[in-house]
């Protein structure tokens, strides 16, 4: 299938997940917030978060299990850069109260002004980072 078609199907599934979380549990399907909450929220408010996170890991494995073509290739970053990137992504999404899913999908769908601002800024910052890295490595 064409990458555009797969991206559309994948995006629709992310949307379906977000709608289910809101309709059933009244929660924003924001990965950084839910992940952070597995360790920082009160004991009784952790299990559903942990199960959502485990679900993402299982869900990511399922298409690959059915068709190895879905297994994403090895990231180009070194392991050291991956550690730095992970720290930066965790710190930034924690400080900014959300990531691509929480702000980019759920927040914009609610027309949240904060999420629209956050999404424009992390997109711009991501674009600037990739552009700079390309220029520096050229």
């Amino acid at each position, binding site marked *: 299938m064409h990458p555009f078609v797969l991206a559309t199907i994948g995006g629709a599934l*992310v949307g379906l997940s977000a709608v289910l979380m809101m309709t059933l549990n009244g929660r924003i399907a924001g990965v950084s917030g839910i992940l952070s909450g597995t360790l920082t929220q009160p004991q009784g408010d952790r299990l559903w978060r942990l199960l959502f996170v485990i679900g993402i890991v299982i869900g990511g494995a399922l298409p690959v299990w059915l068709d190895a073509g879905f297994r994403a290739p090895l990231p180009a970053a070194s392991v050291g850069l991956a550690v730095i990137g*992970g720290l930066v992504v965790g710190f930034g999404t924690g400080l900014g109260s959300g990531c691509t899913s929480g702000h980019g999908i759920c927040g914009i769908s609610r027309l949240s002004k904060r999420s629209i601002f956050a999404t424009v800024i992390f997109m711009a910052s991501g674009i600037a980072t*990739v552009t700079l890295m390309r220029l520096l490595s050229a």
Partner: protein
Amino acid sequence: MAKNLSALIAGIIFGIGMAVSGMTNTARVRSFLDIFGAWDPALAFVMGAGLIVTSIGYRLAFRRAAPLFADVFSLPTRTDIDARLLLGAAIFGIGWGLVGYCPGPALAGLTYGYAQTLAFVPAMIAGLLLAHRLKPIR
């Protein structure tokens, strides 16, 4: 019980969406952000489809007085644009551009067996916890 099961199922659907859409492919994500270079627009369809499904689905969800398995819709109440939001989003974008992972795809790709992914996720959790320590409890 219902709340936990629905979170697990929503997580699985989310993870499938990540793997199918191409979001777990860090090279593709970085090409999507490389708008001044060899831009690959495919992942715009993830956001587009996600936003359409979520915008419509949320409107239907909010017609109900409450979610099915919870007492209330737990929605963010803040509307102010503060420095933490903007700075956090900018920092997140840097990490996203550096490696090509945002939180959801990193979790979805955990079982692919790459050292980069296995290094990224714990570092991201450490970053989230660090930001949580700096942030006053809401």
